[in-house]
């Protein structure tokens, strides 16, 4: 096991910068997830660590070994690194049995036959696939193939484990089971792991830390709680599950940690806690999760929150709950409610605390 240091990593494809000055340190035994939409640079970063792509700039070091250093012209080919990479497609060799697939890296390392057999048995038992050693990959289900792919990687004890969307080819039910299994396995193995995914639930439930990437840059690094509760910008908030953004203007200066009075485009006003000082007149965006917003019963006093008049644009039954689309001062909001709204108008209750105030207009990719 070893720690991983990435410094100033840059990779360009033609005129497009796929990875732009990424800096990251992963401690020994840490499980870090690269999270982001497709094309954000997470897979390119992983490929650079594994040596499948040669980066254009920066430095990658695992333990005491420099994998890549653009300044010094160092580039280790993938076979000279000690990475374990599980592919999204599993990449099991179709002409070899499960046992042959797992034996391949050991044969390369000239492990003696007896020792080889012992280790194949051990690793197949670890992934609960010992009964399938003689099968060919096409005779296995997707979940079983994924386990074999992992076994083939663990069997040679790599210095660092790289997982490229390993669950994305499984169907929803299987994915939940595989995720739980993977979480259990990682606590047993304690391997330094980089996990790439676009699924925030996988990221939140598995990781020690999450790296949210956007447009080839790191948008935020933090623990799952930090990422979820204090997203650094509207992009992270949107990607991690917050869907409601209200553009507003600050009325009068608000101190850091104090309560700011905000005015919407249609003149309605509300209050929100500002973590950082918000100067009067500046443009801000207020973000809420669906579960933080409530329907205000008519005639009640706004207690610990603000009540705003909205227009109902859609209602759809999503099983147990109703999802209600609202329009407020030109912004589209989505609300979960037990009952569908009876009328076209609805009073919305927003808490003073709990929302997140970002500076500037909301510029979130839908």
């Amino acid at each position: 096991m070893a720690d991983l240091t990435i410094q100033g990593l840059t990779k360009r494809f033609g005129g497009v910068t796929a990875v732009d000055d990424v800096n990251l340190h992963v401690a020994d035994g840490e499980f870090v997830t690269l999270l982001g939409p497709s094309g954000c640079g997470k897979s390119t970063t992983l490929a650079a660590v594994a040596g499948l792509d040669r980066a254009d700039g920066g430095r990658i070091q695992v333990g005491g070994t420099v994998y890549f250093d653009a300044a010094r012209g160092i580039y280790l080919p993938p076979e000279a690194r000690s990475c374990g990479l599980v592919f999204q497609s599993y990449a099991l060799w179709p002409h070899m049995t499960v046992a042959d697939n797992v034996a391949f890296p050991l044969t390369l390392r000239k492990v003696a036959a007896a020792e080889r057999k012992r280790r194949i048995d051990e690793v197949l038992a670890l992934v609960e696939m010992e009964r399938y050693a003689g099968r060919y990959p096409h005779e296995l289900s997707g979940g079983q193939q994924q386990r074999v792919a992992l076994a083939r990687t663990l069997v040679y004890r790599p210095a660092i484990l790289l997982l490229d969307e390993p669950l994305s080819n499984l169907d929803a039910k299987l994915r939940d089971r595989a995720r739980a299994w993977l979480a259990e396995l990682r606590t047993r193995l304690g391997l330094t792991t980089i996990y790439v995914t676009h699924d925030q639930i996988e990221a939140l439930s598995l990781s020690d830390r999450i790296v949210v990437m956007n447009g080839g840059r790191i948008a935020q690094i933090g623990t799952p709680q930090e990422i979820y509760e204090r997203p650094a910008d509207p992009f992270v908030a949107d990607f991690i599950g917050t869907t409601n953004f209200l553009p507003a203007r600050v009325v009068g200066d608000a101190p850091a940690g104090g309560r700011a009075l905000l005015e919407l485009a249609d003149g309605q006003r509300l209050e929100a806690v500002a973590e950082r000082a918000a100067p009067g007149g500046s443009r801000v965006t207020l973000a809420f999760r669906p579960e933080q917003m409530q329907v205000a019963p008519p005639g009640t006093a706004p207690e610990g929150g603000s009540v705003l008049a909205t227009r109902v644009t859609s209602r759809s039954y999503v099983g147990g709950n109703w999802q209600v689309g609202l329009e407020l001062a030109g912004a589209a909001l989505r609300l979960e409610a037990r009952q569908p709204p009876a009328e076209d108008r609805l009073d919305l209750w927003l808490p003073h605390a709990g929302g997140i105030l970002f500076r500037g207009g909301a510029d979130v990719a839908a």
Partner: protein
Amino acid sequence: MSLAMSRPEAPPAPPAIPRAAPIQYGTALLVLVLVAGPLLPVLLQSVLDGALYDAEYNLTLANFARLARTEGFGLVLLNTVVLAALTTLVAQFVGTLAAILFGRTDLPLARLMSEFFLWPLYLSALVLSFGWYAVYGPAGYLTMLWQSVLGEAPWTLYSLAGMAVIAGVSQAPLAYIYCLSSASITDPSLEEAARVSGAGTFRTLWRITLPLMKPAIAYSAVLNFTVGLELLSIPLIFGDPAGITVLTTFLFNNGISSPRPDHGLVATAAALMLAVVCFLVWLQGRMLGNTRRFITLGGKATRPRPFRLGGLRWPLFILAALYILATVIAPIGVLVLRAFTAFLSPMIPLSEVLTTGNFVQIFEYPVYSRAVWNSFVVSLVGGAIATALIGLVAIIVHRSEFRFRGALQYLALFPRAVPGVVAGIGFFYAFALLPGLGFLRNSIWILVIAFTMRFIPAGIGAVAPMLLQVSHDLDRAARVQGADWWTTSRRILLPLMRPALVGCFTILFISFFKEYSTAIFLFAPGSEVIGTTLLQLWVQGEVGLVAALATIQVAVIAVCVAAVRGIFGVKLHG
């Protein structure tokens, strides 16, 4: 002890000498020598005043002027272009019609007839010419029958039109394949939409199906024109006796069979031909986007709903059956029959002339049996060597970080633009020129080398599509786990390519087995192959032996094609 406790292992020790670079550079160099080796002498000789192997010579452009002034050369060029154009016309007309009839309508027995229709593709034009001669030649079976009943036969094969019909029929399968594959990838709903909006069968065919085939028709027309320019056997057999010379026979007569060959003139004409064919192949590439001169292995095409011919179904069937009978079954059948008879004529009962004497003679005379044996050795051993080289080239081009892989791909596909005659002359010069290679000159290995160069593109065409279907993750996985490029290629890629390599070997075996246009410039006593012996026997007038030898070639190729299709269930074109 468990995986969790264990320390990470070091990656496997790298091999003492890095293997990727020597293998990649070595292969590239080999292909470079193979392709440039025969072409450079031709180009060089075309600008020299003396022979290439003379002690002294000067650079000159006089050869071009001399060639232009050569008496009758203008007519040679005209003949060449007219023959190629007529051939293309016949091939395109027949091929397109067949593609629609066999591929898109409810014609009875369409599948069976399309099988027969493709046969000329598998056989050499040389064998087909003999077959046509045996049926429609001056002493041919049908000609005699006609004469005995109706008087003078109204056709002759010894004319540009006659040759164009033979060549056109033997090249029609090319047009057929391209039109059919274009029809199978176009959306059948386009035709159904036309029919739903009220267009009848023939209007839909004329207004929708045929226009959709236009790119395929245009592309295969250029392809067939190119093949028409390169034709050697048909003009040699039917053109020469009639005094009709085309560029290939001009090169053959002045280059090899002439006692004092004018090398400057021959090389200049060859260079001219090379330039024209290069241009045409470039044009094909422009038209297709991705240049593929050889359709090789095709999967099973999805077939849209066939058109109903209605009342024309049976008349068209009879017409198609007559065509197959007249152009494929009769020539091959009569040729085979001729092989088993001492003399073939409609006037003499068959039972009186039946004999196996022709075959006995072939196997009794060492010269002839050696030709058969040599053909097998060249095709089997040469095909295997060439397949290995082609597999390596394909892996380097598509699955390596080799710096010059783009250039290597271009180089490996370049022989498409080299006519067999030009390659033959080029290798002849190259081996005459290089002192150390004299021992090769009189052996069959010179043929293996030349054939390999000629058919690298066909082999690549069989292997590359399969390689492109193998996911990159499979070799990346091996690399990450510690296998270097060569181990990955050997242990992962080559086993996965096995079906494609078998297909490649079969195509090369058939191509080598029937090749003659390159060989006639290169063979020597002792290194004859079936193709060259066929031409020699033809010149000697040994029609029975020609028929027997041709029958052997047809039988071997038929067994090959049937075996590959039976075992691998693949269609084999090319």
